[in-house]
């Protein structure tokens, strides 16, 4: 009997260790590339970190400005309608709300008293000047790959800003998540705390793209699924995840559910402007990433990101292949013809004049629904969020605008029209209920309160 129990315990211990090891292996975002890595200082094939050649002789503040855009600090460290970098942006998580902090150089409420070493500790290891641990909503497990020089260039830029007095908002977290000391364990498991190591078997362009995507742009923080402990699970690297009430899509090379069917030009266009003809445009958090970060990259850097994205192993997720043919011109024909009268009526009154019954907009290519991933997502998450919050973006190719309907339409109405749109223009109609829409509003509450109301 004792032997049997002993064997059972051994099996459980091995399984637990194996599971822990599996989680641990999933934390390295670059493991998929294989090959030998070298320390950055020993890599001489090209420039991996820092600013692009165009800015090599610019002053430190200009360089910091480029890098702070590349790392997209502003999107999270700015509350809607608030002063840039003064914090207060709410992250609505299943276990409570976390607010971003003030990173203007205000000595009382910002980072005005941070030394270089303290700033690096926050960026690389998630440790505040007072020694407290930051919640990993701050993507330090990604920024940890950033070089000291780049992080300090960002600090130099931040210290040129006008100090804003904005006291930190109190986080509202349930126990045990309210215990910051527990983050120590999380850090051991999920923060590698090492700087970027170039991969000698890949091209200099790939390495630059990897640095921009992992150390700076932290794409995986939204696009990579998380494990039970909320660490990134790179076994499904970039295969898509639900973040802050919006779906970050699969950006692996899978041809059906990912971006394997996109051309390099499509990707370049989407990354540089937040829109690609035939694939639609970014809204919500990706719209912010395009407007606050990606659109500032020089062409060589955007090309490097494209090259890096192309190397991500295909990973199939549960999304169907995107429908690329237009719906019929008459409302009477098409997939959702008789099924959803309420959705059809709302579409006729509020949507058809810009999006057309075909889905191909007569007004502007930005409003075409045919071929758009969100419309081909049977969860209709991003369709409902876009209906609720609208779109208001300025791009190099012009203004992208859709009114926010969240204030004027009920949860029932929004569910009906989202179901109608995915059924008519997408691969598979959604089955959202008013309750689902209420939950989506909750998760992205911040945007819906602040977006312009059509």
């Amino acid at each position: 009997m004792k032997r049997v129990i002993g064997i059972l315990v051994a099996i459980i211990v091995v399984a637990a260790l194996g599971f822990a090891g599996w989680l641990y292996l999933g934390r390295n975002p670059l493991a998929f590339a294989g090959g030998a890595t070298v320390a950055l200082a020993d890599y001489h094939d090209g420039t991996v970190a820092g600013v692009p050649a165009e800015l090599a002789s610019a002053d430190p503040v200009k360089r910091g400005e480029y890098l702070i855009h590349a790392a997209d600090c502003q999107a999270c460290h700015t509350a809607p309608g608030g002063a840039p970098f003064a914090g207060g942006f709410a992250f609505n998580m299943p276990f409570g709300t976390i607010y971003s902090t003030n990173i203007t150089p205000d000595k009382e409420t910002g980072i005005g008293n941070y030394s270089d070493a303290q700033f690096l500790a926050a960026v690389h290891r998630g440790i505040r000047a007072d020694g407290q641990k930051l919640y990993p909503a701050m993507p330090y497990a990604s920024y940890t790959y950033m070089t000291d020089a780049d992080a300090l260039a960002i600090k130099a830029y931040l210290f040129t800003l006008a100090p804003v007095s904005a006291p930190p908002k109190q986080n509202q977290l349930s126990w045990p998540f309210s215990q910051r000391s527990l983050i120590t364990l999380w850090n051991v498991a999920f923060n590698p705390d090492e700087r970027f190591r170039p991969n000698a078997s890949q091209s200099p362009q790939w390495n630059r793209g990897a640095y921009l995507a992992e150390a700076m742009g932290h794409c995986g923080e939204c696009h990579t699924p998380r494990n039970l402990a909320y660490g990134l699970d790179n076994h499904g690297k970039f295969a898509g995840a639900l973040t802050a009430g919006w779906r970050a899509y699969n950006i692996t090379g899978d041809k059906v559910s990912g971006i394997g069917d996109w051309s390099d030009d499509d990707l370049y266009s989407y990354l540089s402007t937040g829109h690609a003809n035939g694939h639609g445009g970014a809204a919500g958090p990706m719209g912010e990433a395009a407007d606050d970060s990606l659109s500032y990259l020089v062409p060589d850097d955007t090309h490097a990101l494209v090259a890096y994205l192309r190397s991500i192993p295909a990973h199939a997720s549960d999304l169907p292949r995107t429908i690329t043919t237009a719906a019929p011109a008459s409302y009477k024909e098409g997939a959702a013809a008789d099924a959803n009268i309420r959705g059809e009526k709302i579409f006729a009154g509020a949507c058809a004049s810009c999006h057309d019954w075909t889905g191909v907009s007569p007004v502007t290519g930005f409003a075409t629904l045919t071929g758009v991933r969100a419309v081909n997502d049977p969860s209709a998450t991003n369709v409902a969020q876009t209906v609720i919050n609208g779109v208001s973006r300025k791009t190099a190719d012009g203004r992208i605008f859709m009114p926010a309907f969240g204030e004027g339409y009920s949860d029932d109405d929004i569910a009906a029209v989202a179901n109608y749109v995915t059924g008519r223009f997408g691969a598979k109609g959604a089955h959202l209920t008013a309750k689902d829409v209420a939950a989506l509003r909750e998760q992205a509450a911040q945007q819906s309160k602040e977006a312009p109301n059509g």
Partner: protein
Amino acid sequence: MLTLTVNGQSRDVDVPEDMPLLWVLRDHLNLVGTKYGCGVAQCGVCTVHVGGKPVRSCQLTVGDVGTRAVVTIEGIGGTPNGAKVQQAWMEIAVPQCGYCQAGQIMSATALLDTNPQPDDADIDAAMAGNLCRCGTYIRIRRAIKNAAAKSA
């Protein structure tokens, strides 16, 4: 300098490409029959035809018009269906205050261009984006049917 085809005529306008077509029509071409309502494509009063389709001109930037022909309320009477719709509108005196009616007539004409004999559901689907605060919807529906009868 942009060149537009408006109501069959070639017109040159010196405006920024991101100006809404409605602004160009009203302020630069003095075609003030097309009205400004909500400004966000929710009311339909600014409807004009672009390439034969009814489009809310407050949301279409002039740079996106390209070579597509623009027809406004001033020119719609020159098309067969437009003439019939306007005639039917007068026969039963559809408008009350009239502010939305240019847009109503443009949407009604576009409907008859694609569907010569619309039933009530067709009319509702095509006209749903054109609001009328006076509530002339009953007369609008009847006038469209009268105009369709003239086509036959």
